[in-house]
């Protein structure tokens, strides 16, 4: 069949559980729980495909082929399924795969799932496993970690712009305080005293400057606009733009450490696809696995000037609390951003546009979506 451009992907149902340390629950149960919730929310359409965004299941749960595992557990035997992996952008990658699939006309009803389970192993092992998204041969094999990468960026940023680490305080406290209003968040507020007393774990970054690794899952049901009409869905949320762009995986392979090419390209491509400019965007959810990543995303995405990414942005950013306030189930976080944004748009006046961006690795992969109500 021929799909017209105006028959764009829309979201017709979502499922989400609070980010937490879900000791008592398996990867499979976390995933199937939100898949079923999303399907129920969409009035149980017949499903064609389930795309699973996950970064660490192979290592932390010794489990590959999550597509077959979770679809069976969700009562969806026989559908299409595979895993999408792009480090922290895995969930957003599953969402984009679902959008592309319905847009192709080869798939009518797709579910995008983001799921991550860190508490299968003790915290130290989880931190080591998290370094999988670095270049093993030339980064993690030298003793590099995710937090150290963020620290190297932050150190260079402060030196380049002649700033002190105090600039991070306002950004981080805002994230934790926004999370106080998010029922899916692990953290509920932060005061100056607590922030200033944090231990420095990778100079210049402290304990609260990097998001806590945690468990979580979120899912969305995606169809074409015409399918939503046929199903009688009253107010779907439109996916107007979608883009994925990568940069060199390793920090040492980038021409400019402080300019995130993947974020810039992905932002521009998603806006271009949506026929919108940044001025048309009402609010944004950007990536903040660490505070410096949010600063660089704000600068490279064009919302703040270079060297000023720590200042107050001109539009609402990360009112969810972001990864810092919500907790970071890495491969699922992109779906948290998207599902929470869909739910928020459903409660806002019509005509709002939101830009949602997840980043995998330390600026290596950026996947951007533009949602509208």
């Amino acid at each position: 069949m021929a799909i017209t451009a105006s028959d764009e992907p829309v979201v017709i149902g979502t499922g989400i559980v609070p980010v937490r340390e879900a000791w008592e629950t398996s990867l499979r149960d976390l995933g199937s729980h939100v898949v079923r919730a999303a399907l129920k929310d969409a009035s149980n359409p017949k499903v064609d495909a389930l795309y699973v965004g996950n970064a660490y299941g192979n290592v932390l749960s010794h489990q590959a082929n999550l597509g077959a595992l979770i679809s069976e557990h969700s009562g969806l035997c026989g559908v299409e399924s595979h895993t999408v992996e792009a480090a922290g952008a895995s969930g957003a990658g599953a969402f984009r795969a679902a959008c592309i699939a319905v847009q192709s006309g080869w798939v009518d009803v797709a579910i995008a799932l983001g799921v991550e389970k860190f508490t299968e192993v003790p915290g130290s092992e989880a931190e080591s496993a998290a370094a999988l998204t670095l270049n093993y041969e030339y980064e993690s094999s030298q003793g590099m970690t995710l937090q150290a990468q963020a620290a190297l960026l932050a150190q260079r940023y402060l030196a380049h712009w002649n700033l002190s680490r105090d600039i991070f305080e306002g950004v981080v406290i805002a994230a934790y305080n926004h999370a106080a209003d998010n029922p899916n968040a692990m953290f509920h507020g932060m005061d100056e005293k607590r922030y200033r007393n944090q231990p420095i774990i990778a100079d210049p970054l402290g304990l609260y400057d990097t998001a806590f690794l945690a468990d979580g899952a979120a899912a969305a049901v995606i169809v074409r606009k015409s399918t939503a009409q046929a199903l009688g869905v009253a107010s779907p949320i439109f996916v107007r733009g979608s883009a994925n762009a990568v940069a060199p995986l390793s920090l040492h392979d980038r021409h400019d450490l402080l300019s995130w090419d993947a974020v810039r390209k992905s932002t521009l491509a998603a806006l271009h696809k949506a026929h919108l400019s940044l001025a048309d965007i009402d609010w944004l959810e950007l990536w903040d696995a660490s505070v410096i990543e949010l600063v660089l995303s704000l600068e490279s995405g064009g919302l703040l000037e270079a060297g000023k990414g720590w200042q107050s942005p001109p539009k609402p950013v990360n009112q969810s609390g972001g990864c810092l306030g919500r907790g970071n189930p890495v491969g699922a976080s992109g779906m948290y951003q998207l599902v929470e944004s869909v739910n928020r748009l459903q409660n806002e006046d019509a005509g709002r546009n939101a830009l949602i961006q997840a980043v995998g690795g330390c600026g290596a992969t950026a996947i951007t979506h533009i949602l509208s109500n």
Partner: protein
Amino acid sequence: METPRHWRLKKQRYALVGEECPHCKAKIFPPRDVCPECGLEAKTVYHFSGKGEVYSYTSLTDAPAGFQASAPYAIALVKLEEGPIVTAQLTDIGNEPVKIGMPVEMVTRKLRDDGDERGMIIYGYKFRPVLS
């Protein structure tokens, strides 16, 4: 134990062996098939001097598995004289505070001690301050 990988990387790790692009003369490390500067094929072996300066750095108290024995340690991006940036630990820094721009040179040191992986010890490059 991961013999094949470490055997394969030994040359680069012991002596900072990279490439020089035959087209644009860019010096390349780590070695790769396509020159990151001009996009053409790069295969000519090039030995780096091992001299450079600290481009960025941090120090870690919580080390990942395999690196606990050396914790706390400083890890840095080192900009080599010839251009490329390398990820590596700093060593022999004593009480001198690490600074961006500090001159450093490559040395071979024990990188990790795979207690969990049958006691294999892996050597490779680290960088130390240049004695002035």
